[in-house]
């Protein structure tokens, strides 16, 4: 197996309502270590389902997902251990409202990685500082703006030292003026060599940061390539149509 491939998806299918809805209908794809993959496509095309399947938040109907060469769709695999290495950032942040920012960030490392409280807090403060939120460590999520919440959500995932980060429309729920601060954090993360899979409608970000762009439609990958190939010279009609709409 190729050492460089961190996630390999083979024939991934996700059907709802006994096959009436085919959210994913045979997706093959692989993500290399350090690669930034941006997934675009019209609403309902299965982007979220695909991303959420990668850490098994959605249980695939069929197909395989190899993470570090382990098929995590195998029921015998302890998925919880693998999820620790895949950070996920949601559209709606999903911070824990009953915990402070710091507690949001330290609960997983202390409970799951058995880190000491001091170590976990030290790391959390480092990360908060990097996203400029160290002064909000003791705030509760409800006291933060949307952009701040999403930055906290990102560093919360980073506290687990993941090998790959999954982003599902991280800026879609934000007021426009806050989109930049979140994208900046993601760009920096990409620069540092983090493996990232990002579902987004921010085409500027995709063009600037992505190593590869995947265009999905109707539960399948229609076209993929470098930003230049996809934005500069889309081959598929559906890709062309979609880009005409969003650009």
């Amino acid at each position, binding site marked *: 197996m190729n050492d460089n491939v961190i996630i390999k998806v083979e024939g991934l299918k996700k059907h709802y309502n006994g096959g009436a809805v085919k959210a994913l209908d045979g997706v093959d794809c692989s993500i290399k270590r350090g690669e930034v993959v941006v997934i675009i496509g019209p609403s309902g095309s299965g982007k979220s389902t695909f991303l959420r399947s990668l*850490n098994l*938040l959605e249980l695939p109907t069929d197909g395989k997902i190899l993470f570090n060469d382990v098929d995590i769709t195998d029921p015998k695999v302890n998925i*919880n*251990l693998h*999820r*620790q290495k*895949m*950070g*996920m950032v*949601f559209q*709606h942040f*999903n*911070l*824990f*409202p*009953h*915990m*402070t920012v710091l507690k949001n960030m330290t*609960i*997983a490392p202390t*409970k*799951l990685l058995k880190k000491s409280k001091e170590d976990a807090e030290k790391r959390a403060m480092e990360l908060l500082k990097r996203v400029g939120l160290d002064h909000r460590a003791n705030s*509760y999520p*409800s*006291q933060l703006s949307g952009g701040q919440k999403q930055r906290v959500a990102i560093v*919360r*995932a980073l506290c*687990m030292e993941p090998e790959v980060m999954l982003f599902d429309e991280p800026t879609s729920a934000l007021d426009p003026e806050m989109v930049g601060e979140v994208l900046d954090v993601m760009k920096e993360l990409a620069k540092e060599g983090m493996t990232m899979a990002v579902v987004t409608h921010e085409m500027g970000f995709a063009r600037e940061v992505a190593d590869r762009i995947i265009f999905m439609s109707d539960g399948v990958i229609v076209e993929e390539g470098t930003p230049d190939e996809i934005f500069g010279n889309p081959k598929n009609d559906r890709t062309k149509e979609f880009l005409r709409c969003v650009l």
Partner: protein
Amino acid sequence: MNRNTTKKKRIIALCVLAAVIVGIATTVIVSITQNKTSVKIDTAEAQVIVDDTFDSIIPSTATGTKAIMDKMQITVKDIEYGYEKNILLSCEYSVPNVKKAVTDNKNAIIDGTYKFFAESVKQPNATKIKQYLSEDMLGYINAAEMLSGEITLSLYEITDGSLQLYLDDTTVDTVTGGLITAKGLINSINTATYNGETVDITNSTTVRTGIKDCLALSNYDSSKPDTSNKIVVWFRELADEFERNFVANDQWLYLAQGLGTTLAITACAGIMGLILGFIVAIIRCTHDSNGNFGILNAICKFYLTVVRGTPVMVQLLIIYFVLLLPIGVPKFISAVLCFGLNSGAYVAEIVRGGIMSVDQGQNEAGRSLGFNFAQTMIHFIIPQAFKAVLPSLANEFITLLKESSVAFYIGVADLTQGGLKIRSITYSNFMPLIAVALIYLAIVLILTWLVGKLERRLRKSER
């Protein structure tokens, strides 16, 4: 806005609580201070009043009695100043020589009395009266001779500050030899009964004055004079009732011990219900989310259906008499088990609702970090669910407290039972039942207040 309403609620709750406390305190204080107000006149003063009063009675009752008075030693035995006797003062007199004085002056009394009445009611019945009096005065003297030597008279202070002599019915009989029964204000008495025969005395000023003077009363009323206003009377009656129901024989202990039992049952059953409810809710939610626990889930559903579909009273009777009594389980434990089981079903549905109300994103966030289902539940879902359902849980707990009152059906000595016990001793309904209600109310208000506080603290994290 939210804060304002809770503030208002808090104020109302505090007001009601204060009212309850003030009410209870007033009754207690009134009943305690009864008979214990400081004496306002000393014995010497009282003696003067007594002497004056007798002086004013005797000459006009019957001239002969004057002689008795000279020989009698009237001493003030006891001064009672207090609430009970209504007008602040009552005096007990010792008249030790009455028997001797009366006997010694038998003839003078008969003569004097005869003269007095004969003159007073000359027309139209003078002859008859003469006859009656000579016979009856003998009876009177005999009665007086039989006296133990002590008469009790009471002095009352009237609102305008003057003192009045009040004689109870027995004393009146004694003094007048059973001849005169005066009812109502002396000024409106138009008839007097002389040995069973009613005589019109409307036009007889002498008789009227005579009787009036005889009793030394300007407005004699055969009932105790009551110059206090209605509210005071009402409070006094309340205090008496309070005393009779709770203070007497330390009967309040029935309520205190009952309250203890009620609280113990509620606390134990509440904790049991909470634990049971959470377990059932988690089983149900787990089953809903990933299909585990099929059999357990079915059992839970059955339990919920049965408990929520039957009255708690019936459950209690079945649990105690059918299931537990035969194997010798005590009443208290049976009650706790019953209410715990009952409460558990309601808690389960409340908690399940709470768990379902937590945003699915919370579950995903927890799971995506690598927490397993149980950890996610414990760290993220349940704390939020708990916060969301806390008011409902508190209400359930309060309901439980109130429902536990049916425990008396199996003979548990709870608060309700305590009230019923007192009721069966004193035959009053008002005091024991209202007291039971007030105690329940007070506890409920305290609980509501505590929960409000807790809720505000929990809410801080979401502000």
